C-alpha cells in the first residue's frame, strides 16, 4: 500500500477538526498564559532599561578609566624622561665640580621642574700618620715605710717609684706586717679560777 495515505488521512482529519481537539484545556490556560506574557513583557522592559543603564555606566567607566590610564602612563613617561634629564645634568655637574659621585643624591621629585637634591658629605676620618714611641707610664704615689729598726730615720722623703703600678705599690704597703719587739709583762692577780689552781698569771704578750 502507499504509506503516504496515512499522512493524508491524518492531516485531513486534523485539518477538519480545525484545532478544536485541545480547545478546552487550551482555553483553561489562556488567561494565565496571557498574564504571564504581560509580566514577561514588563520584566523584559525593566530588564532592558536596566541593561541600558548598566551599559551606559560601563561605557562611562571605561572611558574614564582609559583617560586615567592614559594620564598615568603619560605622567610616568614624563617623569622618567625628567629623571634621565636631571641625572645627566647632575653627572655633568659632578664632573665639573669634581665632587665624588656619591655625595649628591636626587632625593625626591617635588614637581616637574623642581628636584630636591640632598648633599651628603663624606665623614672624614683622620688617622695618625706619625709613630709615637711610649717610653713608660708614670704614677705618683705616697709611700709609707714601717720598720722595727729604731735607728732608721723616719724622715724619709716621699719616693717616686718609677715603672711600678699603683696596685703593686699598694700591695707592698698594706700586706707587709708590722714587726714589734717582744717583751715580757708580769701581771699579778687573776680571776678566782686561776687563784684556786695556784697558777701564776704569767702571760706572754
Amino acid at each position, binding site marked *: *500500500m502507499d*504509506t503516504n*495515505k*496515512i*499522512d493524508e*488521512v*491524518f*492531516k*485531513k*482529519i*486534523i485539518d*477538519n*477538526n480545525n*484545532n*478544536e*481537539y*485541545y*480547545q478546552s*484545556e*487550551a482555553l483553561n*490556560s*489562556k488567561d*494565565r*498564559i*496571557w498574564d*504571564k*506574557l*504581560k509580566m*514577561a*513583557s514588563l520584566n*523584559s522592559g525593566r530588564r532592558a532599561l536596566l541593561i541600558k543603564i548598566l551599559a551606559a555606566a560601563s561605557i562611562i567607566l571605561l572611558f574614564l578609566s582609559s583617560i586615567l590610564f592614559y594620564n598615568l602612563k603619560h605622567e610616568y613617561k614624563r617623569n622618567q624622561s625628567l629623571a634621565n634629564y636631571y641625572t645627566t645634568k647632575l653627572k655633568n655637574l659632578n664632573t665639573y665640580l669634581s665632587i665624588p659621585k656619591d655625595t649628591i643624591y636626587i632625593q625626591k621629585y617635588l614637581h616637574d621642574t623642581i628636584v630636591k637634591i640632598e648633599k651628603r658629605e663624606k665623614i672624614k676620618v683622620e688617622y695618625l700618620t706619625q709613630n709615637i714611641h711610649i717610653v713608660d707610664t708614670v704614677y705618683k704615689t705616697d709611700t709609707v715605710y714601717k720598720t722595727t729598726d729604731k735607728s732608721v730615720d723616719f724622715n724619709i722623703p716621699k719616693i717616686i717609684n718609677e715603672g711600678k703600678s699603683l696596685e703593686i705599690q699598694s700591695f707592698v704597703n698594706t700586706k707587709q706586717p708590722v714587726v714589734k719587739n717582744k717583751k715580757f709583762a708580769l701581771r699579778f692577780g687573776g680571776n678566782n679560777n686561776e687563784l684556786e689552781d695556784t697558777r701564776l698569771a704569767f702571760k706572754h704578750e
Partner: protein
Amino acid sequence: MELKEIIKHCRSGSQLAFNSLFNKYYQLLYHVSKRILGNHHDVEDVIILSFTKIFKNINKVEYINDPCFVKWMKTIAINESIRFIDSKKKLEFIEDVRVVEIDDSLLNEPELDIDIVYKTINQLPDGYRIVFTLFAIEGYNHKDISQMLNITESTSKSQLRKARIRIVNQLKDFENGHK
C-alpha cells in the same frame, strides 16, 4: 481587525494589538506545540516563549501575506517546542522497530476520528512523533526537518517510515480492542 492591521499596531507597541494577535492565533500555536510536545504543562511554557519571541521580533519580520506570517509564527512555535523537548531530555531516534505488514483496511477514513488520530500520535516515541508531525501534518520536507532536528535527511526519512509502521500497528491494536 485584519492581521496586517494588527501587525502594524503591534509594531507601534499597542498592547491591545498584541492581545488581538494572541487571541487570534493562540489556539493554532497551542495545537502545533501540543502535537510535538504531547504535554499540557510543557505547552504552556512553550507558548509563553513563542509569543514572547513573536512580539519581540515582529518589527523585524516582513509582512508579505497572512499565510506567510502564520507560517513564521508556527515555525517559531515548532522551534521552541523542539528546543524545549531537547533541553529536558535529549532527543533519541529509535532505530529498532517491528516490521509488520500494513493492512489497507485499517485506514478507512470514516472509521477514524480525531480522538484516535491524536491518541495514536501521542503514543509515538518522541523522535517518531516529531518527524511524523512535521512532515505529515505541518508539511515540512525532509531537508527542513533535518535542519530543525540537526539530523541527516536519511534519518528523517527512516524515522518517518518507522513512525508510519508504528501508527498502523497502533491502529490495528485499537481495532482489535474495539472488537
